[in-house]
């Protein structure tokens, strides 16, 4: 999807590294490759690729991720 990008700086995706246990599930479910795993922690590598679908939020075991489309 490198040739199709939507607006930058709008995604409400947030990741709390403190809560992350590095299970990698968010990486598995994200259809836009937004996360990478580094030293047993997930990192957001491409915030602007996020379409706020909530798949990662729905599957993170420790509620380390949030998206809040429509708020603010």
């Amino acid at each position: 999807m490198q040739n199709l990008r939507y607006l930058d700086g709008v995604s409400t995706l947030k990741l709390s590294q403190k809560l992350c246990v590095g299970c990698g599930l968010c990486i598995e479910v994200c259809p836009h490759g937004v996360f990478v795993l580094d030293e047993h922690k997930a990192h957001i590598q491409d915030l602007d690729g996020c379409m706020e679908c909530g798949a990662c939020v729905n599957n993170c075991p420790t509620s380390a991720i949030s998206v809040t489309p429509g708020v603010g």
Partner: protein
Amino acid sequence: MTALMSQMPEQLEELSSSTDFTLSTKSVKILSSMPDNGGSYYSNLKLQPLETHEKAGYQLCSHVEDFIFTKAGTVPKIKTQLSRDDIFSTIMVRCGIGRNNYRVAPGLYGVGEPGRTSEVLVTANFKLSFDHLRQELKGINVWILVLDTRGVNVWCAAGKGTFSTSELVHRIESTGLNLVVDHKRVIVPQLGATGVSARLVQERCGFRVVFGPIRSRDMVEFLQNRRRVTPGMRQITFTLAERFVLTPVEIRIAAKSVFIMALALVFISGIGPQIFSLEQAWNKGRTGIVMILTGVLSGTVVTPVLLPWLPFRQFAAKGIVSGSVLAATLLFFLPLTQGGIKGSMALFLFSVAISSYFAMGFTGATPFTSPSGVEKEMKRFIPIQAILMLISMVLWIYSSF
């Protein structure tokens, strides 16, 4: 003759119950006094196993080729080849005709000769999703668990909450899946992850969710790869073909407002020095309708198809670009306008505003636009589109004087 006919069912049963019967012309001879349609009896005999599943008031689905007996009851075995009817219906649905009713019954289905160790693939009960999946499963043995998503595809249903943790758990339990397979594993398409929480499914019914590839065509490779995805399978695409098949439905969505706009425009076109002229309404209105159609085509087809190549990120802006090019070309080459330069200007702006509006609508159909982004885009562009409309209408009326 009547006597012969009443004998027939018995004769046929006899024939089919002996396994090694041969259907020569000899055995059909009992029907010699019947019209010459022996061939149809032959095909009746072939269908016999399915006929035993007939039930008054029900009709067998054309995608079912047999039934499989399991501890949880009989499970329909489905074809991996689409019939001509399936393909015809696919085209109709893609064109937005009868889209709301194209569904299959939720529940468990089988492909090939599935057994107690075969994988279970989960999908939605939108018939296109179901067809899409089954035609990719040629030559393998799997179960398919169809969730009730009210006839909506996996991706949209997951967003709407019908392709969900609770529906999956409910369907696993109501079909008695644990009686059918020995393992405790279901494969859910990755795009279903928005609605399905693997952890909650396991907590509630003990089945482990494995997220499979996004596209059905990667399914066989995924299974052969011992349920491991290659990186490409995880990434969503939105190719030219994928965009193109969405356009007929966009046109259909637009059709209703086009009709209203056309009526309004014809009416406005009639306003002139003699207050209202029917002749002028028709003469000017005609050209106006052509420009409406141009704008709609630009917004619902040209912009979606050319999406990656049009400048700007906002769809509404892309729609302005493609709309401008199309409208300007049309106005340049065709002597459409009554009302001189003012009229041309009006029609140009009108067409561009329409194009921008419908292009913006396409943000709802893509797999990469975030709701926050769409909101931002709409806040900015709806006023712009409204102003363009207003200016064009004022110019259009003014051009009659």
